[in-house]
């Protein structure tokens, strides 16, 4: 489950990264816009998620994988909160219509999948302990 979860979160972060720079890119004006800054931050978060997933494939330590699952949950929540770094005022603008909803969906999915992986590890550990105690 945990290896699959890393694969899924890596895929979601790649797809989201591509989307927020192509079909769902934020508004663009003659001056710097607040939503562009937020999208930049979201892009960095997605890149960090991808990097941590790649590292957890390479580093075979169980503890490292669990730590990356916890950080992925936190980064997923951070993706949900990216509009607080700045967004356009009107709801029909491209950033509020496409970019932030896309980031919300990917944030929810990344946090949900990572949380499910963490829970599965905990359940497995719990059942393992019980079996050990019975033995």
């Amino acid at each position, binding site marked *: 489950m945990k290896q699959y979860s890393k694969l899924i979160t890596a895929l979601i972060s790649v797809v989201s990264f591509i989307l927020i720079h192509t079909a769902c890119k934020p*508004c663009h004006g003659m001056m710097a*816009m607040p939503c562009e800054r937020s999208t930049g931050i979201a892009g960095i978060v997605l890149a960090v998620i991808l990097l941590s997933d790649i590292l957890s494939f390479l580093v075979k330590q169980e503890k490292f994988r669990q730590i990356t699952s916890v950080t992925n949950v936190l980064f997923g929540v951070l993706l949900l909160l990216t509009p607080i770094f700045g967004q356009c005022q009107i709801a*029909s*603008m491209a950033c509020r219509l496409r970019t932030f*909803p896309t980031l919300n*969906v990917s944030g*929810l999915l990344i946090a949900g999948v990572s949380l499910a992986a963490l829970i599965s590890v905990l359940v497995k550990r719990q059942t393992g302990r019980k079996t050990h105690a019975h033995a």
Partner: protein
Amino acid sequence: MLTPNQFAWQSILKNRFCSLMFLCLVGIASACLFGVGFFNENLSSGIGQVKGRIGADLIAVPSSYDKAAKDALFAGDACTILFAENPEAQISQLDGISQVSSQLYLKTLAFSCCSTAGLQLIAFDPKTDFTVSKWTNDSIENLAADEMVVGACCGMKQGTSMNFYGQTFKVADVLDETGMGYDQSIFISYDAANQITSSPEYAVYFGERQNLSSMLLINTNSGSDIESLSRNLASSLDGISLYATDSLVSELKSQADYFRISGLVMDGFVIVLAVIALFALITITFYQRKKRVGSLLSVGISRGKIVQIFFLEYLYLTLLGTGAGIGIVSVFVIPLHQIIKQTVNMPYRLTDFGGLALLILAVCGVNLLILLISCSLTFAKILRTEPAHLTEEMT
């Protein structure tokens, strides 16, 4: 000693692959049922509001702007619509007409904050208006020239300021959600609109004119035949298209019915497929555990308890799968609500909490029914077969 509850959880965790497949099947079925139901509920909720929200019997628009007016009204596509001559005075004098209110539709130009222009500004006369004022609890009769009222999905709060056509407007009120294009529109008074249209700066667009009109909302006297009145109006005035709100609503309802019937057909297929797949999975699992069931019967565990263990296992998986299916659809549909609304090009409004709760209960009910149908044959077999046959110990 293990309780049936613990036994069921142990079976779920032990047979991980089968449990995962069961979960996926129920999850996909739930996602289809909930997704289709949620979409249809939102459409019905949007269309149900149209008649009450427009609040007029007839709508008159310039005939060359038919499509643009419909798109602005229902999908929120911003546009500028102009009558060559405002026919308000002519129409209000005709027999059978009780109220006429003019509205002016203007598409905003690029403004300083963000380069994306194209917002819908609607000018209305607070004195003659009988539609916009219905959508708010506060009185907007005295809307000042530097104030605006915004639709529910504009994302602006009371007190926010915004610049359109070189003038700054402050949000005086936010309207309730209508599910129509009005949710993305910004309403200003005719005084403010006259300042814009008569300004030499925008002479190329409006020719420095005042009291321009895009749409007339008409109420008829009670008991009048709206259809014949509409025909009379259309024949007496050139370049005008008239729509009866009732016929617009029935046109929308027939489109929504098409979506509902297609959804029901899809739901039917999903249910049949889910029943067949779950029946196959449960039967295979039962044959794999036949000996175990026989052993349990041999040591004196009642048939009822064994059926309970099986049922609890599948019940937990069904509930988990239903939750997962509904959750996944919600993760996509709720944040992307505005995009879906623009894509369907029809009044679309998120259903209220009661409607959503009923839909979730209905999906759970259908899934439980699918489970009962799929399990029934296996359970009948457990209840009927002798323990010796199950353990395959024949003499």
